[in-house]
């Protein structure tokens, strides 16, 4: 299972009114429920799903979902 597949259930759970595609290019403005508060929830739920911890700035600075995924993969590789 790749990282996108791993975090897709988190997205579906948190953004339960969004039924569009979940892809690397996804940004907050694509998802009406994705505000600053939800961004905090998203960070923590992804941490729990992947076992990768984010500093608050680190997650906030990701420009899109692809950058989140790249950060997760980079941290996983560093831990391995």
């Amino acid at each position, binding site marked *: 299972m790749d990282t996108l597949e791993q975090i897709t259930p988190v997205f579906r759970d948190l953004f339960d009114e969004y039924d569009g595609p979940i892809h690397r290019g996804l940004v907050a403005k694509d998802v009406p429920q994705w505000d600053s*508060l939800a961004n*905090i*929830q998203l*960070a*923590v739920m992804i*941490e*729990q799903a992947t076992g990768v*911890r*984010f*500093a*608050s700035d680190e*997650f906030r600075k990701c420009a899109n979902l692809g950058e989140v995924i790249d950060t997760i993969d980079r941290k996983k590789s560093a831990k391995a």
Partner: protein
Amino acid sequence: MTIKPGDSASHRFTLTPELMDAFQAMSGDDSRIHTDDAFAKSRGYKGVIAYGGIMLAQLSRVVGTMLPGANGMSVKWAINYREPLYVGETAELRLEVAYASKDHGLVEGKFKITCEDRTIATGTTQSIVPKDEIAD
């Protein structure tokens, strides 16, 4: 003292007729399973069963006054009702911190409501909490 995974709080409450009446008045929910003893028994229960909202009210008390406490703000609750709670019974709600992120200022809890050996409900909470109240 700062919040960390494994911290817990518990609260006991008794489901009184007054509590049922108050919740009925507040919610406007007069469905028969909560108000009509004969109907509830015809459905196989021992009597009228607790409003789920009463259990959420008890959860609100624990989250708002005990863990994470007065400075937290709930952003998500999820609950699964497992078995009915009956009028006159005393239940215990126990909440445990499952995850705490100081970086993000968010605490997740898992809770369980039990009555003797029965599990009445289980669920999860998320609260935004001042970062200085969360352990490193």
